[in-house]
């Protein structure tokens, strides 16, 4: 069980301040959503949490260990990330992706072993993608690609899962199904989950904590029931938001 911490984290990208002196602790079994307008730096923050982008000051730690002290391998065994775009993968097959995802667990002098193959097989079955993985990425639809990438994340078997707009461009049906199934599974496995989300309602429905990036380094974080209100969201979006209730759930709609 590991928890992910941002300690006094300040991140800047180009001339934009993403966050300043951010202190959050994400405990195992929690699902966080990062919200904010376009360009506020959500992806950059996610990359910094993954150890892929530098921070201006502060640190990111897993179980009190600063991730910058970890070797690339150790970090990859702990943190898995789903990227926003997959246009640059067109010539690879799904199977290539799944095998590559086992890399952090395979020693330099070892090869892909029986154990790895079994994990890949099981994951492919569980995610119902076995019929897709021989084809090149370029010929698959957006939804099929996402599913394979998520399966790769499962193969990588990390305690921390970071997702950059996981359900973008997917049909609504898929969006709901994916989030429901995956998050239920990950909660049971007590993984630390942080998602960058664009849709306020999906975020509030599926995550138990929210981190709102308000721009210029300001941020707001806390449990969803506390953070999700008209005032905060109106400030976040820059447009008045009205809250409605339907089926016992809060819905946030622009005025």
């Amino acid at each position, binding site marked *: 069980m590991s928890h992910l911490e941002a300690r006094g984290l300040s991140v800047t990208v180009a001339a934009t301040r993403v966050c300043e002196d951010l202190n959050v602790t994400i405990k195992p079994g929690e699902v966080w959503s990062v919200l904010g307008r376009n360009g506020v730096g959500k992806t950059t923050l996610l990359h910094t949490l*993954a150890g892929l982008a530098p921070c201006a000051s502060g640190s990111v730690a897993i179980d009190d260990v600063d991730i910058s002290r970890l070797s690339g391998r*150790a970090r990859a065994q702990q943190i898995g990330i789903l990227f926003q775009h997959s246009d*640059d993968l067109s010539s690879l097959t799904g199977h*290539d*992706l799944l*095998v590559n*995802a086992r*890399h952090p667990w*395979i020693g330099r002098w070892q090869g892909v072993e029986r154990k790895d193959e079994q994990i890949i097989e099981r994951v492919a079955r569980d995610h119902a993608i076995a019929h897709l993985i021989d084809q090149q990425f370029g010929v698959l639809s957006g939804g099929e690609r996402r599913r394979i990438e998520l399966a790769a994340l499962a193969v990588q078997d990390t305690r921390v899962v970071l997702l950059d707009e996981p359900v973008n461009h997917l049909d609504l049906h898929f969006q709901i199904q994916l989030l429901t199934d995956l998050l239920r599974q990950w909660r049971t496995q007590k993984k630390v989950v942080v998602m960058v989300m664009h849709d306020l309602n999906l975020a509030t429905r599926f995550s138990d904590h929210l981190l709102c990036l308000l721009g210029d380094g300001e941020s707001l974080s806390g449990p969803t029931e506390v953070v999700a209100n008209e005032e905060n969201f109106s400030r976040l979006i820059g447009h008045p938001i009205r809250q409605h209730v339907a089926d016992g759930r809060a819905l946030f709609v622009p005025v």
Partner: protein
Amino acid sequence: MLQAVSRKESARRLWLPVVLLLLCAVALAASLKIGSVVIGWSEFFAALMGKGSPMATAVVLDLRLPRALSALVVGGGLALAGALMQVLLRNPLADPYVLGTSGGAAVMVLLVLILGMPYSVVPVAAGAGALLSMGLLLLLVRGPGDWSSSRLLLTGIVLASGWGALISFLLSISEARQIQGMLFWLMGDLQPQAPGWWRSGVVFLALLLSFIFSRDLNLLAQGDLRARSLGLPTKGLRLAVLLAASVLTAAAVTLAGPIGFIGLVVPHMMRLLVGSDHRILIPCSVLAGGALLVFAELLARVLFAPQQLPAGVITAFVGIPIFLLLLQRSVRQSHS
């Protein structure tokens, strides 16, 4: 049992390396037996032992054998360099010379020829030029920001263009009698000279390392960010790949001039047959590249005998039909 890869591809991964090895052996044998000096079978075997007539033995052991071995080493080295460049730059159009290595080598060689230095200096000049070009590239690419594939490619292309302009200039100021020799070198041709220990060693070492690090190369093909997210130290790895590809290219160019086509197309041919997994792609590319150049060199000597064509011209003529055939088949397969 889950069918991880299509049945055809996984079977090919087993027998293709064996077939290619056999092909290399056949190419080598043909290159030793066939030539302008006609040698019968019994004489041929005697010559191999060193016991044939002085002419036959000299032709087979001192002329044909070193050149065939060179073709094997150069062809394999160029194919490997091409595969590495394609992974490094994540661009299917990349070949060993795209970042300017052969341009630098050519400029130094032309300088040496213009200054009238003996021909034995040419290989040294070629190697120096290639390494100079690589050094310049690294210098230009330094500075803030991670050197992305596109930045590397762009800088390399500009460098190559610069060398190209210098080559044209040098050709325009040289004397008529020197130009013939220069043009012949620029087209790429094998000398009847053994590859030498250091060249063979370089190719072998690069092959070994590429094979050991083939999983890393597979990851690198996914892009810098993704590879890093899976724990790969990409900056160091990419530098190592660039160095390996450049040294391989330098070794090839010092022996045979800038032979084209092999570095670009052989890795693609192998990809069409066995996919992008570098564990299989690398060894197959090296074997296929070697066999192709040995055959091309043989044809260059024999097609219009007694006239000799530069081997670098024949590689394209031999390779292009094969490549188009493979491409057709794979297109048909993917649409069926």
